[in-house]
């Protein structure tokens, strides 16, 4: 099954090239050049991972991450940043980011993190399903 990923960055050239390279690696890639656009996309589509730039005009990555997590707590978000300060990194993790990668990043690293994000998502979905089944079994008393 292909990995479905959303890349969010205000650098259009970056979006185009990374999108081509990830697509060539059998990934299903969507892009958004603004936080607002990205939030709209996660409301209507399901992604295995979101790769989100930390510094964007109008709404920064941390604010975007917060909104995304409120809308979908299971969403796996990898933050991409030009400069990661320790404080920002801690804040990002507290807000539920899965990882933080510094730009320019090696594509192998990005791909590996996306795969890990997908695995995390599968575990979360399985746990939820298991809980739902247990609830049903308890309620029905079978």
């Amino acid at each position, binding site marked *: 099954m292909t990995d479905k990923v959303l890349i969010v960055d205000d*650098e259009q*050239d*970056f979006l*185009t*090239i*990374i999108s*081509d*390279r990830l697509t*060539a690696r059998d990934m299903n890639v969507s892009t958004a050049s603004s936080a607002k656009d990205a939030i709209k996309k996660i409301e209507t589509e399901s992604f295995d991972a979101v790769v989100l730039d930390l*510094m*964007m*005009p*109008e709404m*920064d990555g941390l604010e975007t991450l917060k909104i995304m997590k409120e809308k979908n707590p299971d969403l796996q978000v990898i933050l991409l940043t*030009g*400069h990661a300060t320790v404080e920002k990194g801690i804040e990002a993790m507290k807000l539920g980011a899965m990882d933080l990668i510094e*730009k*320019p*990043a090696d*594509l192998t690293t990005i791909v590996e993190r996306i795969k890990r994000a997908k695995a995390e998502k599968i575990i979360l979905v399985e746990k939820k399903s298991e809980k739902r089944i247990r609830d049903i079994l308890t309620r029905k008393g079978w």
Partner: protein
Amino acid sequence: MSNIIDPLGEAGLAFYSKVSASISHEIKNSLAVLNESAGYLEDVTLMAKKGMKVDMERLQSLAGTMLKQVQRSNFIVNNMNRLAHSLDDPASQVDLNVLLELMINLSERTTVTRGFKVSVAFFDTALTITTHPFFLKNLIWLILDFAMNITDDAKKIELLPAKLESGAKISFTGLGKLTESTFKDFLSEPVLRILSLLNCTLQPDDGKGIITLNLPEKITQPSQ
């Protein structure tokens, strides 16, 4: 710590640090595009070795992207270099049109990230004054930072440089929420020290939402 650091020096360092951080972020973005472009070329080479057809138009477009990013980085580094050299001489001739253009470029990432549009209506001819270039830039940065907290909802700030009989002025417009009280708060010790160093005055007009910086043709006490 604050007792041993001179407020003027602290303001200057804070300004320089913020610009450096913003510029290095921009360069990192540019490097990220170049990094991905090099990676793309590597991908294409591997695919070509396996006998797959190479999309020549895509390669041409990629070369254009890389060239654009090199020019962008060069522009950013040139601006940083110009700022760095503004400390070379405590008093030198500057053209306010040129200085404001540099300031718009240096502050662009910060202003755009905060959702603001800052522009300059350049004066028709050169507006030359003799001043301390670094501290004038520092002061403009501080005014812009303050201005972003008091603009009206349009979030647009326009800088209007103009000639005066005794020098020149720069008006910062679009400051719909400017009040006497907010202006007073802005006049911190570093701001007052820079105003004094540059022999200039700052004049608020809260009715029109404008702050005007009046600059002398030549500063009289270039170093402190």
